[in-house]
């Protein structure tokens, strides 16, 4: 789509419907992503729920570190196999974990992924999975820093 201007005129006319379709699809996904809002990670809220128990927080964060990676991998494998039911179940599990850890934005993306899995919308699921991977990747440095801080 980026190099559309360099193409000869006949080629432009030929691929125009595809370009429109691509933009429309992207717009639909972006619109869906825009609905996925919220705080990235509300540590204060989480600690309040844990009665300020830093040790327990570390235990949960270590689980997050392991389980989020494993679940993302599992979700990716489900998507490749087009096993949308299992994908939805995996996303549901992730959603529970993320929401409980007050990782609100990632939790909402996991919810969107679960919905896409339930509706068997492969393309949406692909996009949400990418978003979820990114959201988790963004959370990891903060998680590591928190773990290092408490452990120190």
């Amino acid at each position: 789509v980026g190099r559309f201007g360099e193409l000869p005129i006949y080629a432009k006319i030929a691929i125009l419907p595809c370009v429109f379709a691509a933009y429309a699809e992207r717009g639909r996904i972006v619109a869906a992503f825009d609905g996925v809002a919220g705080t990235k990670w509300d540590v204060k809220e989480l600690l309040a729920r844990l009665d300020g128990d830093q040790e327990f927080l570390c235990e949960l964060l270590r689980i997050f570190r392991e389980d989020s990676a494993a679940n993302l991998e599992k979700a990716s494998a489900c998507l490749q196999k087009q096993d949308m039911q299992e994908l939805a179940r995996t996303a549901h599990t992730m959603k529970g974990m993320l929401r409980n850890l007050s990782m609100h934005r990632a939790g909402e993306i996991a919810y969107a992924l679960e919905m896409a899995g339930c509706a068997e919308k492969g393309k949406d699921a692909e996009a949400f999975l990418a978003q979820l991977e990114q959201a988790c990747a963004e959370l990891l440095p903060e998680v590591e820093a928190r773990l290092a801080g408490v452990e120190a």
Partner: protein
Amino acid sequence: MRILVAEDDKVSRLMLEKTLHQAGYEVAAVEDGESALNELAKAEPPRLALLDWVMPGRDGLSVCRAIREHTERAYTYLILLSSKETKADIVEGLQAGADDYLTKPFDIEELKARLRAGERILELEDHLVEARESMRFRATHDLLTSLWNRGVILELMNREISRSFRENSCTVVMMCDLDHFKQVNDQHGHAAGDDVLREVARRLQQSVRSYDMVGRYGGEEFLVALNRCDPRSAVARAENLRAVISGKPVLARGKPLQVTVSIGLALSSDYRSCDVDEIIRKADSALYAAKAAGRNRVRIARPGGEIEKPLQEPVTLEKC
């Protein structure tokens, strides 16, 4: 109180465990529906369960349905946990057998309040079950001796004798009557008489096998059925019961009293064409013969109206 947590997500499970521990619950945690069912099928299962709706394998709904199929078990209060929150979801969850429903992520105070509500329901259920069991006991047992009452012992005996006919085995019917019991009441008072009846009942019950039956037939009469008994050992078993009663004085109101019993026997294998009432009448006539022969002894009713006595009789006869 023990509570079961079934949740596949480790973080949610640990958080629930910690919250529940802090609230004073003992927690059994599992990660899927099948394990939840196994936990709830154990001998003393948790009475409260928090079940995640979506779990690998059996989901929470399926666990609810399976639990509700077992109506013979003690009631388990089931709370479904899920992020599903449409009315249709709630209705589906409750129809599957859940008692309550919590939407995730849940508020801890709300969770505790709902668990307390569950405990109240369980306490109420326990009281009802206790009352029902007490009524059942009173309807089937003699309240003084805690033995089967007359109606139940006759019914059970009827069943056992019918079975002995079908299986070509033998049920030994023993009619036992305390000797001179009236004198105990007259000389020592009715409270002492009650002590004697209770102690004799206890000795009879302890001297038979778990699948034999002892009941109070009336006043100072007891009915004993020895099921699947070898006819050749019937007299020895009766002699044993007689010796158990007379062998050691009974403490009545703190005073030792010598008590003896006369026993009349009838064997179902001798009376294949008779019904229970007739067999009991045969045992009764053998009992009268034992009384007439001096009490504290055993007599056996035989076909043709003959009354047989054991080869060995007690040497000294005690009167109470």
